[in-house]
């Protein structure tokens, strides 16, 4: 009987020869990601850290990204506490403000190794499935306990197998694919489950596409959303310093048992929107043409990579953002910011009227930098459109692909990105 990705990875991490969906295993994750919330986490265990010590210097990966640079004294004090902690313990994987959004940084720095478990006190830790790593979210208290013990429990999830075939039509991409899937199976369609992506279309999906898809796994309730380590992944991994010999990739057996199988043909995917206020409220762009947009947000951990900025620059270069709207651009990391700058993309976007924000979470969680006013509509490439998410509970957030957002920035309203890209 074959095993799924989740059954194999978790059995290995628990030091067992095999595991089955439903079992509870105690595992030692390779890394624990925390971000600005590190100050609250260490605040729970100040005395215990002194008494028992930090279980390992290698375990913590800390990235300050959520509210950067600090927006007030309280945030600044939190950041300082985290810096002091990282220095005191001489943590090798501490990344200060400006390095990027935590999930991008973890993957770029080669800390999400295929076949390992990385847990994080952030729900989008599932992003690391893009490179065959079992990444999953936990809470602050669990992160605190992990600092002391290095171990936690995980239930071996059931798995969903998604088979992808064909290729995208121009103007359609990975964001449309994952939103379409979430619309199909609902925001809880993969609750407590591992979602595996298979099929001949994988060869045409870049690591950036896979990152976008895996990142949104949690928006359908998934514990992990994962891709195999194929040639595309191996090439990317070697570019971040992980050559073949430095990890042991894991993938499902062909006769593994799945709770559900889904087939998707990429050429059947069309540009879509996730309308307020749930991510599974998905509709074709063509049903909402002409909807006026006040703010466009391009970037975040979902779509802030170089290819996303390239798509937007392709639509906007030599033109102007519509006077009715404003365009915020949020590169996912310093290295992406720099690459986009060197490639001239930032020049082109700024000349077109974009406002480039520092590489962090920006307005996505509603703490600062682009808060909405009552009644405003924001079209965003981010991953959540929950009521109140961007700081105002009577504003509306609509999710879409970088192409759709760039096209809307130009038109001041929702238009078909396939038409905009022809011009």
């Amino acid at each position, binding site marked *: 009987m074959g095993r799924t990705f989740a059954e194999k990875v978790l059995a290995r991490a628990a030091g067992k020869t095999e595991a089955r969906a439903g079992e509870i295993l105690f595992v030692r994750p390779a890394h624990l990601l925390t971000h600005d919330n590190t100050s609250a986490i260490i605040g729970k265990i100040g005395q215990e850290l002194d008494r028992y010590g930090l279980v390992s210097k290698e375990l913590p990966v800390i990235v300050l990204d959520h509210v950067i640079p600090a927006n007030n004294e309280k945030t600044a004090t939190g950041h300082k506490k985290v810096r002091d902690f990282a220095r005191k313990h001489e943590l090798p994987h501490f990344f200060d403000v400006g390095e990027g959004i935590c999930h991008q940084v973890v993957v770029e720095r080669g800390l999400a190794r295929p076949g390992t478990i990385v847990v994080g006190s952030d729900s989008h830790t599932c992003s690391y499935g893009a490179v065959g790593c079992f990444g999953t979210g936990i809470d602050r*208290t669990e992160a605190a306990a992990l600092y002391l013990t290095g171990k936690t429990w995980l239930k071996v999830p059931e798995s969903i197998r998604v088979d992808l075939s064909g290729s995208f039509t121009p103007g359609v991409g990975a964001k449309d694919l994952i939103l379409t899937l979430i619309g199909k199976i609902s925001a809880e369609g993969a609750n407590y489950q591992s979602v595996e992506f298979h099929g001949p279309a994988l060869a045409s999906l870049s690591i950036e596409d896979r990152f976008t898809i895996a990142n949104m796994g949690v928006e359908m309730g998934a514990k992990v959303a994962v891709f195999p380590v194929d040639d595309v992944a191996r090439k990317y991994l070697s570019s971040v310093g992980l050559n073949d010999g430095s990890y042991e990739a894991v993938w499902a057996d062909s006769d593994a048992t799945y709770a559900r199988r889904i087939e998707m043909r990429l050429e059947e995917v069309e540009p879509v929107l996730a309308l307020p206020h749930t991510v599974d409220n998905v509709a074709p762009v063509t049903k909402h043409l002409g909807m006026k947009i006040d703010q466009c947000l391009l970037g975040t951990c979902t779509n802030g990579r170089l290819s996303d900025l390239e798509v937007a620059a392709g639509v906007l270069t030599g033109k102007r953002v519509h006077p009715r709207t404003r365009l915020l651009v949020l590169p996912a990391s310093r290295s992406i910011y720099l690459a986009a700058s060197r490639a001239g993309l930032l020049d082109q976007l700024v000349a077109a009227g974009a406002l480039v924000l520092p590489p962090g979470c920006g307005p996505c969680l509603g703490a600062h930098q682009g808060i909405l006013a009552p009644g405003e509509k924001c079209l965003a490439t981010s991953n959540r459109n929950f009521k109140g998410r961007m700081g105002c509970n009577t504003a509306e957030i609509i999710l879409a692909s970088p192409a759709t957002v760039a096209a809307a920035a130009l038109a001041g309203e929702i238009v078909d990105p396939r038409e905009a890209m022809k011009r």
Partner: protein
Amino acid sequence: MRVWQYQDNVNTDMLFPGKYTYTCSTAEEVKPHLLEDLDPSFSKGVQAGDIILAGRNFGCGSSREQPVLGLAAVGLSAVVAHSFARIFYRAAINQGLLLVECPEAVAAYKAGDSVELDALKGTIKVGGREYRFPSLPPEILAIRDAGGLLPFTLAELSRSRSK
């Protein structure tokens, strides 16, 4: 038990707005903002022993433990829902807050019905009809029964040190 009833997909932003995540960490700081964007009457009216009845996918969204801290601190008896999102579910175990997955009980409830929950017996009575819900696996129940993950972990560390 007094009941607060909510819909499907109650997410972490409704339970505790993201704009407060880096300014409010303790239960006392969290309490006034509980369910602020969902039901402004909740934080003023909730009393120890009350119960939340909700639909599918309760607690979906961020890894945000503040709503769990707050709900545990106001003394909520339990959240009974059709289903829960997984990070919220873990967070509740880690804070010792009882979550009950019981779609039948949620479907049966009509405004005004009396609701009684017996955590030890694993039963919930809605308008006179009784429904059963399964216990957590023993290794997980041990965490919740210790009062949450930190008390559980500290007891374990203290035992291993004294050996």
